[in-house]
């Protein structure tokens, strides 16, 4: 274990994305910081320069032709209070923010930071992946946009370069009659999720499920799409039987670890339970009675 202290020698507050990228590229020991709720807890001694992204004009939430764009520096609290995420189909975003840490943490933390920390238990990725969100990343060669899922390689390992910055999250327009929910298993407000589950379903006229997405957090190195559970639900009616089966299939796909918070067995079992709960919530949001 390193005995060294967290002692950055430079603190920068760029006002443009371009400036930020130059600063990050210039020093291999430079790291971005925004709210500080991850970086200042970790206090990584390897960091020599801090590039504070808080002055970049990226704290917006806006609707553009049915899609929703969220700037990477928007705080979790801003998202929590936004009316856009209090209505279907995007209510899972509100679910993800309203139990995110404590209110002070939500006032500080940025959505970009939560996405880029690369921790499996992060609250924002699962519901965004379930909604087919894309992210825009800016680097010295310009910017590119790709599905959020592709951002994650492994625990704390992203597919973007060290000097690249996530600038925007785009949630595409959802089909009509789409409902989404996010649930997590956690011991207290200041703890991280033991297991989390985000779902999205679209209900057709005859009650069959379309475009189901089930994404699990904290049970794999990266956000986990429970593809087999999704395939199972596709074209099926949502009822207690199909929901239970979906939960079981999702649980089988997980590969959690045992740690101070929970054992492999508990996480596996609870992942199925959470998928069921999230699906029930989504169905309840549709207003459909089901058996």
């Amino acid at each position, binding site marked *: 274990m390193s005995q060294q202290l967290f002692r950055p020698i*430079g603190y920068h507050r760029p006002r443009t994305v371009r400036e930020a990228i130059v600063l990050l590229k210039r020093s291999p020991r430079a790291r971005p*910081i925004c709210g500080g*709720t991850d970086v*200042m*807890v970790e206090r990584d001694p390897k960091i020599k320069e801090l590039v504070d992204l808080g002055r970049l004009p990226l704290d917006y939430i806006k609707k553009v032709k049915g899609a929703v764009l969220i700037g990477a520096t928007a705080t979790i609290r801003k998202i929590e209070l936004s009316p856009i995420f209090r209505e279907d189909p995007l209510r899972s975003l509100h679910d993800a923010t309203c139990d995110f840490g404590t209110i*002070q943490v939500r006032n*500080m933390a940025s959505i970009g930071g939560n996405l880029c920390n690369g921790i499996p238990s992060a609250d924002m990725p699962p519901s965004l992946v379930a909604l087919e969100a894309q992210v825009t990343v800016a680097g010295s060669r310009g910017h590119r946009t790709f599905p959020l899922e592709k951002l994650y390689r492994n625990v704390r390992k992203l597919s973007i370069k060290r000097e690249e910055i996530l600038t925007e999250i785009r949630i595409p327009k959802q089909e009509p009659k789409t409902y989404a929910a996010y649930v997590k298993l956690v011991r207290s407000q200041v703890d991280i999720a033991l297991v989390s589950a985000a779902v999205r379903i679209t209900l057709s006229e005859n009650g069959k499920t379309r475009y189901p997405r089930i994404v699990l957090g904290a049970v794999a190195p990266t956000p986990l799409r429970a593809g087999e559970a999704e395939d199972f639900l596709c074209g099926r009616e949502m009822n207690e039987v199909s929901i239970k089966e979906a939960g079981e299939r999702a649980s089988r796909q997980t590969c959690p670890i045992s740690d101070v918070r929970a054992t492999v067995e508990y996480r596996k079992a609870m992942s199925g339970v959470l998928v069921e709960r999230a699906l029930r919530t989504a169905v309840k949001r549709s207003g459909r009675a089901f058996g």
Partner: protein
Amino acid sequence: MNGVRHEVLVKPHWTLSYVLRDILNLTSVKVACGTGDCGCCTVIAHGKAILSCLTPAAKADGMQIETIESLSIEGRLHPIQTKFVEHGAVQCGYCVPGMIMNMKAFLADNPNSSEEELRRVLGGNLCRCTGYIKQVEALLKARDELRSSEGC
């Protein structure tokens, strides 16, 4: 800082809590866990409760910050402070400045908060002494008083 402009030379690794306590002598700001879990270090920046132990000092440049030292005006206590005293909500007192600043910010924006919501927000402040009962009582009374007097 509490309405007064200060210029402080800070080092990149300093936190806002260090500046407030050790440089500006605002020792109401407490640091207990230092990792953002207990809420003792809570101050208000631009009307929002934040954790000063996780805020880099340099990041506070340009911020308008309030600590509990500014809460009483010419000796007159804020309703939250008065109720805390009246209801016996203070034991060792260590969590109190952070708790009051957190709840002051919240009630200022949410004067009609439900008890449930208020309790959830209070989750941002750990107290090892009281069990929270008197604090919730005091806060509900303060909420009512603030609502009826329209002042904060």
